[in-house]
């Protein structure tokens, strides 16, 4: 059961790169945990921390204006590579509730929806506009992701719609457990299995 997501307003952290892969989001040395928690501190580890363990102050998430951010604004094909759901667990635990990008890798997109994180796909030029607004505001920039209305807006004139399959949207809106939902049609699964045994 996830926390239902209706509408969220929060500070934006901008990561203007395409093809950010899940190896960067959560490097492999942190995948040995057998729990779903404990990944937040390792988010973007090799980018956030220098090899000597000190904070890398050049990295976007370490800028003062990005502290407390809960919406990640980033480039195309976000979350590509490994299927590791640990990447979404790390983002969620760090504090991100929504990710705004021109596109997401397929497995990562599904993993977000399983964990109450809204992946909002906007047009490339809309994302570019948001990066501009974020920079113009000196990084002190907030967005509202409204899942009921399926809109992303900044209260300063930017407002646009995003698409999400009704099934995923409802799952996020209500914080549904997908297994419970599937078990509602358990009789169909049984019928399917009986049908194949008969083959």
């Amino acid at each position, binding site marked *: 059961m996830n926390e239902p997501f209706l509408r969220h307003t929060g500070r934006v952290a901008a990561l203007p*790169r*395409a*093809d950010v*892969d899940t*190896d*960067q989001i959560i*490097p*492999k*040395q942190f*995948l*040995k*945990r*057998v*729990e*779903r928690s404990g990944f937040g501190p390792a988010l973007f580890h*090799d980018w956030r921390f220098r*090899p000597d363990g000190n904070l890398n102050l050049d990295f976007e998430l370490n800028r003062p204006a990005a502290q407390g951010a809960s919406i990640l604004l980033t*480039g*195309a*094909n976000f979350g*590509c*590579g*490994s*299927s*590791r*759901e*640990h990447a*979404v667990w790390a983002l969620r635990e760090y504090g991100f509730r929504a990710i705004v990008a021109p*596109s997401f*890798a*397929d*497995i990562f997109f*599904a*993993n977000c929806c*399983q*964990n109450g994180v809204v992946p909002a796909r906007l047009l490339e030029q809309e994302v570019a506009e948001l990066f501009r607004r974020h920079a113009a505001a000196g990084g002190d920039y907030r967005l509202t992701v409204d899942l009921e209305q399926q809109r992303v807006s900044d209260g300063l004139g930017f407002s646009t719609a995003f698409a999400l*399959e*009704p*099934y*995923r949207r*409802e799952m996020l809106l209500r914080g549904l457990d*997908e*297994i419970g939902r*599937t*078990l509602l*049609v*358990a009789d*169909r*699964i049984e019928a*399917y*299995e009986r049908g194949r045994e008969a083959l």
Partner: protein
Amino acid sequence: MMPRTLFEKVWDAHVVHQFAEGPALLYVDLQLVHEVTSPQAFEGLRQAGRRVRRPDLTVATVDHNVPTGDRASPIADPVAARQLDALAGNAREFGIELFDLRSPQQGIVHVIGPELGLTQPGMVIVCGDSHTATHGAFGALALGIGTSEVEHVLATQCLVWSKPRTMEARVTGRLARGVTAKDLILALIGRIGTAGAAGHVIEYAGDAIRALSMEARMTVCNMSIEAGARAGMIAPDETTFAYLAGRPRAPRGAAWARAVERWRQLRTDSGATYDRRVELDAAAVAPHVTWGTTPGMVAAVTDRVPDPADCASEAERQAVARALEYMGLAPGTPLAGLPIDRVFLGSCTNARIEDLRAAAGAVRGRRVAAGVRAMVVPGSQQVKAQAEREGLDRVFREAGFEWRNAGCSMCLGMNADVLQSGERCASTSNRNFEGRQGRGGRTHLMSPPMAAAAAVAGRLVDVRDWELATL
């Protein structure tokens, strides 16, 4: 009946339920489980008081974090050991077959599935690993899933999936000598980009694909995910049936004959359409090498590293500049001749017996260059045993390669096999992301003969210029 693609036939045969809000509930014929992406799924089942619906359709192995050195000594890393213990405990508790470190059949999950004959045409196969696409080489619909989905399949034997679009990748012509399936797929990724097939399932077709062995087909399908596709498929044919015949978990006797008859139906009908098509001329493909930090940053070994100044867009310029900085490469550097420190022959992309034979062909009678550390990590203990029967281990050892036990090893560097910062590695694996093989490590992806030749030369070379021994 409407003509259908291979994908549509397998999809249609597995729809259990169609949700009004979009996706379908698909039946899963086989779930493969490994130690890294499963513990949270089993814990979820326990907390909800659920059981595994079909333990008989679930098979587990250990591969990602296992040491590849001496199997007799205990595992040095206590956190990794805990993960392996968790899988052993879960397999026992939920009644799932496990190929553990003591098993002669242990290996990388995508190597042992086909090897045991578990992977069969027409199946829907899932695993909490993005390279599950490998199994599509048999005409299965095989895809990687996240841990929540692993739990869902354990509990229901079904996957919720919205019908993807289809793409045909038609490869015609003949591969030149020294050019492999790895070069084909790298060339395709270079052409369409790392998100080129996002939202699609790729079907590889054409006479060049038909001419490939099963091992080579697996290499192609394996890297579908590097092109953005969750799955890649190849229609089964005589090559497929010959590979599967007699495998321990393949059907036998009358059941085998019936199965083959069924499997023969699994091809795209003439007149069926795809949402997208791309074509590639195999004869024009040269050995490929990646120069950057995504598999799409790839070029022929005869090419040079690109210059950010030549990029079409500002975003691309920044991405290329960043990649070159990480890789320690100056714009315009020729790829051939680039000195290397390490060589990794392994991974679910290229650690099957045929890969090891091809690599050994470049190594036989030669020696690894001074200052280069090279290792061979077979894809499974069975591949290892087979290679030893053929004397390949001696070829590698005598040349100065380390000869290891099976696992993912330096493909992702979760165990002790990692690059040091700044080390440059010729690798047969599938991902050259920053830090993938170790923080600060610089990975160049290529084929097994190319990596083997690089080990001997101490630098990247065009393997087409080499005498290759046939073993």
